[in-house]
């Protein structure tokens, strides 16, 4: 049978629509090559991964159906979900890309197209893309050394070694710092020495403002000088425990960044790129206020955005990208540089479909080696889930609801809080929840669970505070996480209001929350130093072993006001 590419793609689409599992690499061999056959363009290429959260193996990851943008961010990337995103980028419903970029028909699409990411698969893809792009650089936007059991148990060493083997050239960070300042400096000064440039123009010592890392690195790509400036997550000591980096100060540092851009240009850079962990809304604002940056390659907010947002500024324009999370995507930015400046570009955010890619043997061997001492512990079966478990979304996710339910039951609490983290993988109905899956949601260096007496007024104060970190009208005053997940208390969230007035109608067991009464509230991940408590994974694993089967979770979601016509919610 002879079949041209178009016919073959149609056949695949038909098969997908019929629910066939397309997970045979041999059956798809021809297609796989074509799917990833990305024509080279220009003379300067940058590959970008970010926020893989230490996921070395292929995983499922459900994109959010709630990612609301307000004010200038309303109905603009990255605040488009589901069908709004498909429409904005011309992606066909039911297609591979629709599965990669949206939550639509998640269970069915996941069975059809399979798992995504995995470092051995990513390694093959990186090699393939680099083969047609000589001299290209591989940038890692950070949140690489945290998010899995093995990363926690090896203090990030598994990911340090995997990043080096993958061929990362330049890196910046965020969750890396929760391993402690000394650990990060040790890796940068030893493992990375002469191999990976760790850059962060916005980290200084808090006493004299001395630089802690290099501001930028200047590399030659096909004889063209290219500067990659680092921007670490500006609110690390606020969003995560400040005691992890006691002598460092972060922040956005626009003025300093402009100086660094100018100095890179003065040193001959014809292309200037900011490798950023700001989050996409912050990057878009920054792009309008700092000039001379050709592209901001961003992460932190875990937005898989198919094309760059182009921002005009005093110096011309800046491309702003965001490359998703959990190893799902590889960003490829090609510049055509002529007469000393960027003349044109192409960008592609390639989803990493594990079923379409032969894993790289060397990376596969490394992964097997780092996992070997822990396999028994990782594979421990805790319970079977009847519903889909996921985290991502502005207000709640089913895995977070499970954590809240476990916290309230085990601790005997009336209410519970769980942080609005955006990492954490997904499970399909019928899957066994293993210890590894639980660690994917909880593997942090400050895992203590707590039971605290709080007044109703304090509970409201905390919820208002976190909500403002998500919805403050000024992106520079946002922190890029989601709303704290709340168990036991129903509420209304009014997005037309400001801090102090957004959270209303708070009810517990059918009664209005009394601002003066004390309630028992369970939680985990305290940012204060010295808090004692059983690690969250022990609380939840005990609960799961006891339950054996997890029924589909009923999400505690707030009633939202002010979302009419908002394309960030479906």
């Amino acid at each position, binding site marked *: 049978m002879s079949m041209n590419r178009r016919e073959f793609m149609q056949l695949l689409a038909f098969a997908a629509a019929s629910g066939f599992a397309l997970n045979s690499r041999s059956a798809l061999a021809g297609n796989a090559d074509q799917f990833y056959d990305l024509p080279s363009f220009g003379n300067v290429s940058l590959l970008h991964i970010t926020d893989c959260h230490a996921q070395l193996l292929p995983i499922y990851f459900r994109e959010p159906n709630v990612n609301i943008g307000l004010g200038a961010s309303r109905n603009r990337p990255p605040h488009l979900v589901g069908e709004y995103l498909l429409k904005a980028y011309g992606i066909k419903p039911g297609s591979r890309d629709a599965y990669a970029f949206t939550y639509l028909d998640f269970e069915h699409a996941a069975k059809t197209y399979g798992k995504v990411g995995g470092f051995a698969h990513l390694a093959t893809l990186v090699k393939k893309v680099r083969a047609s792009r000589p001299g290209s650089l591989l940038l890692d936007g950070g949140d690489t050394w945290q998010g899995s059991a093995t990363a926690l148990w090896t203090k990030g060493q598994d990911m340090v070694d995997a990043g080096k083997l993958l061929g990362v050239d330049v890196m910046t960070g965020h969750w890396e710092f929760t391993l402690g300042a000394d650990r990060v400096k040790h890796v940068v000064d030893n493992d990375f020495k002469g191999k990976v440039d760790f850059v962060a123009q916005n980290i200084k010592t808090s006493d004299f403002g*001395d630089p802690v890392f290099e501001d930028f690195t200047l590399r030659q790509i096909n004889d063209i000088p290219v500067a990659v400036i680092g921007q670490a997550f500006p609110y690390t000591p*606020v*969003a995560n425990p*400040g005691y992890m980096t006691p002598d460092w100060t972060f922040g*956005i540092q626009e003025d300093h960044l402009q100086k660094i851009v100018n100095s890179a240009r003065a040193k001959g850079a014809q292309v200037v790129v900011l490798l950023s962990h700001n989050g996409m809304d912050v990057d878009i604002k920054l792009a309008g206020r700092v000039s001379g940056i050709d592209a901001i390659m961003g992460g932190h907010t875990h937005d898989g955005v198919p094309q760059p947002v182009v921002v005009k500024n005093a110096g011309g324009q800046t491309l702003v990208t965001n490359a998703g999370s959990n190893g799902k995507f590889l960003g490829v930015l090609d510049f055509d540089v002529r007469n000393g400046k960027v003349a044109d570009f192409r960008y592609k955010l390639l989803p990493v479909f594990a079923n379409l890619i032969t894993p790289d043997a060397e990376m596969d061997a490394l992964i097997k080696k780092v996992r070997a001492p822990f396999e028994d512990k990782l594979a421990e079966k805790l319970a079977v889930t009847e519903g889909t478990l996921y985290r991502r979304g502005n207000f709640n996710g089913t895995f977070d609801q499970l954590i809240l339910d476990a916290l309230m039951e085990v601790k005997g609490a009336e209410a519970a809080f769980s942080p609005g983290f955006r990492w954490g993988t997904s499970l399909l109905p019928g899957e066994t929840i293993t210890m590894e899956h639980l660690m994917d949601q909880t593997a942090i260096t400050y895992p203590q669970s707590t039971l605290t007496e709080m007044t109703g007024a304090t509970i409201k104060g*905390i919820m208002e505070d976190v909500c403002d970190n998500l919805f*403050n009208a000024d992106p*520079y005053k946002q922190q*890029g996480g989601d709303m704290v997940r709340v168990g036991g208390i129903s509420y209304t969230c009014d997005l037309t209001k400001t801090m102090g007035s957004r959270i209303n109608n708070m009810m517990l067991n059918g009664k209005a929350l009394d601002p003066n009464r004390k309630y028992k509230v369970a939680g985990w991940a305290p940012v204060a130093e010295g808090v004692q408590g059983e690690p969250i994974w022990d609380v939840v694993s005990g609960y799961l072993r006891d339950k054996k089967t997890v029924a589909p979770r009923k999400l505690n979601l707030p009633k939202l006001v002010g979302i009419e016509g908002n394309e960030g919610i479906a």
Partner: protein
Amino acid sequence: MNQARRTFLKGTAVAVAMLSGVLKVGKAFALEWNSAAFTAKKLDEALKSSGYEGAAASDDILIKVPEIAENGALVPVEATSNIPGTTSIAIFSDKNPNPMIAEFNFMNGAEPFISVRIKMAETAPVRIMVKANGKVYTNSRDVKVTAGGCGG
């Protein structure tokens, strides 16, 4: 930088500030302590008592503060006045128990630049007030003070 040099510099920085005469530390406290202004509980009372009432907005006052404070107890504030004839710079924060935080007087054409750390009770504007040639000027920036946690 090695630790010994760092410690030495910390000590000398303080000594230089004390001796330079730019900050009239001793004199200010001994002779000109404006108790009514510094103990006022409300912003308008503090501004009135310190003579900064009715200030005109000015972009010639440059302010550098964090968007979100890393630690509300130690918020770095830098301010420069490019207004000719600047004789004083004062810092106020609306929601502190005592909104007037500090005042610096500049003599003999000293450069009107300050860099200090202030304590902030909660999210509020940091107001920089300037006296120059008998007039008062102001500029402000909001600083967010948050409980933290829950980041990405």
